[in-house]
């Protein structure tokens, strides 16, 4: 975002806080990204909405599991090959290095780290999430291919943890994205994290880790919650 845009945003923000019109429609979208009508070369008028391109606006769809034994077999493969996104969203990510190093070595359990959301199917929310990060987490989560799983670490994701009264961090993760496994602790030890992975494997093998479909099913509800706290919602509703 360029400086000019920032200035614009901030001036908008200050204007609002000065007049204290909290109910007025707020816009954090940059002027060039706003939905508008443009005149095409042939003189016709068409509507453009730069933030929403064709795919971004598409709702996620439920993807039904395959039948019987096939799905079981695939679930077994999925369970034994969990690729975790390397996105340290909070302080719990300090316990990730011990997991990939000799002391705890989670590779032997089939768990590996991947750097990009496209290639990962598990997301560790390592503790508290500030609203600013939540925005990125939602974006990242939506980019991950289904079936995808979320492990939530620590008190912060359950009920706010230490930051229950903070203006910047969310209290309950399950309001914004569906969570498969919660691990108690502040922060949980690597051993607890491994136990969480074991639990996740169990769930996958039992075919119970279908939270990505739940997200698609309750998409509107999740979106409403997300939009309630992300005041500057300047991204597409769904990022594939």
């Amino acid at each position, binding site marked *: 975002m360029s400086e000019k845009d920032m200035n614009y945003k901030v001036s908008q923000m200050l204007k609002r806080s000065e007049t204290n019109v909290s109910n007025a429609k707020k816009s954090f979208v940059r002027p060039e990204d706003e939905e508008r009508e443009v005149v095409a070369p042939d003189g016709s008028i068409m509507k453009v909405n730069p933030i929403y391109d064709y795919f971004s606006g598409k709702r996620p769809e439920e993807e039904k599991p395959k039948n019987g034994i096939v799905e079981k077999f695939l679930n077994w493969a999925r369970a034994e090959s969990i690729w975790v996104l390397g996105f340290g969203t909070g302080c719990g990510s300090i316990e990730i290095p011990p997991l990939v190093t*000799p*002391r*705890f*070595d989670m590779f*032997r359990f089939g768990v590996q780290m991947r750097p990009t959301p496209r290639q990962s199917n598990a997301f560790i929310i390592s503790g508290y999430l500030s609203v600013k990060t939540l925005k990125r987490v939602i974006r990242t989560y939506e980019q991950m291919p289904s079936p995808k799983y979320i492990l*939530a670490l620590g*008190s912060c*994701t*359950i*009920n*706010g*943890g*230490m930051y*229950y009264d903070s203006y910047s961090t969310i209290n*309950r993760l*399950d309001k914004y994205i569906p*969570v*498969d*496994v*919660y*691990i*108690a*602790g*502040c922060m*949980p*030890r*690597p*051993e*607890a994290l*491994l*136990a*969480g992975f*074991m*639990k996740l494997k169990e*769930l996958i093998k039992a075919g119970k880790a279908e939270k990505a479909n739940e997200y698609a099913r309750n998409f509107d509800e999740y979106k409403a919650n997300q939009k309630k706290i992300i005041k500057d919602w300047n991204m597409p509703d769904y990022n594939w």
Partner: protein
Amino acid sequence: MPFTAWSKIVKDPVTIKDPLNREAAPRYRGFHDNDVDECIGCGTCEAICENEAIDLVPVDGIETKDGDSGLRPKIDYGRCCWCALCVDICTTNSLRLTNEYTWVDTDPDNFRFVPGVDEKDWYEKEDGWRKPVPNYHFYGQERVEMEELPAEARGDSFIEFVKGYSKDQAQQEADRCVECGICIGTCPAHMGIPEYIKTIRNDDMEEGLKILYDTNPLPEICGRICTHKCEDVCSVGINGDPLSIRWLKRYIADQVPSEQYHEILDTQKIFKGDTKIAILGSGPAGLSTAYYLSLLGHNVTIFEKLEKAGGMMRYGIPEYRLPYDQIDKDVDYILSLGVEIKYNTDVDAKMFKKLESDFDAVFISTGLHAGRSTRIPGSDHKHVFQSIDLLRQITAGEEIMVPEKVVIIGGGNVAMDITRSMARLQKIKYGKVQTLATSLESEEEMPADREEVVEAREEGAIIDPGWGPKEIEIVDGKIKGLHVVKVLSVFDEDHRFNPKFDEDNKKFFDADMVVESIGQAPDLSYISDELKEKLELGPRGRYLLNEYNQTSVEWLFAGGDIVVGPDVIHGIADGHKAAVGIDNFLHNKKK
């Protein structure tokens, strides 16, 4: 050369083979455990928790009783940060953290549990975080010592020997309070104890006085002689000395001169209606009722048999414990609210009947002024006295017999009062003390306050408990002494009074005078038979009262020692309740 790193390939991996069952360090701060039998539900853990992770909840199978709120901490692992401040401040040392650390769940609502009550598999783990020892405390463990006159200086006079706290001392003592409120529930009058202790810390005596008068119109008196049930249950006292709540109350009252009372309590002018209420007896219950009824706008008349107001507080408690000027301070303030008092007025049955027609309601709190006798052989001798009579005479300034040797029968506070009074009188008269007190109960069971016993011994009196009086030996019309036998047990299995004696184990106490102090009885002769029939009786022969101390005769209220006691604070509580009850009664009647 970097290639030397390859030498590691021949070494075995250092990985932990089975990380899922690895034991954490012995001091590890894992999940909570609570010894629910030790825990009293004081809620200090809740107060110190910076994350508001702890709730106090009622738990099945744990009943609320004095000193135990019946609540137990419920911990929300959606909040906890495992700082263990709750363990470090736990007043009972019942809370601890085990070194278990794995809890994986799919439902976020499951992460709440009551440690020690809800089934969890880590309770059997011995290791884990406990409060560090030694000298690691979050609040003072030792009571600030109250300055007292030494036994030598106080033994020969009736001046008050407890000096009271200085400001520093009081603040230091008040600082130890953890504001749990267990005491509030236990105190019969439900005084706002933590609140007024807080005013001491803030050095705001006016606010403190207001809080005191909310529930207790006799703070000077209570601050000295209250039986302090609150201190017995004080959570600070479980692992240390209990807070000296009584002295702190006295400190507040002492700081405010009586002239300022009206101003502070905003009672220069109070509303008076046209209702009239008679109160029999000006003891704590009577005064308390009078106070609150006055505030409620009623005209109160107190009928007092004796010369001065105060009842047992004045005539039962010796001056060294409760100086008369302090009684006057409290009593005068109450009387100054427009309470009419008629001294030297003995209400008999005839007069009582008149009261019924003259007044809208009557409150009786005539107390226990009749001593009980042991009825052993020789107890009808003229030199066998009732302690209650002696104490009254001492207060009234009458001359009493002070012999060289005296034996007191009884182990209660009144017995100690008379013991210590007699010891003082002996010291004054003879320069030495030859007072002996004996009781049925053993040393541990004696109902008297521990400090009373200790102080009595300091002052030279002999306390020899565990003996049952058999006979007072009288030779030539003069008392020679008291025969006693060893008591095996005082109460039977059902906790009923049923003493058993060891007849072979005998003892003889020399005495010129014997004082009986085994309890008092009410004198309710003023109640006519006609009325008595109307009154419903509850268990143990007492009049049945509702929660407002109202008898089954709706205009008659009762309170004080005749109802429950003997105890000042119960009397005050009764007075308070009765005042509200009378007010309600009159209000309804008007309708």
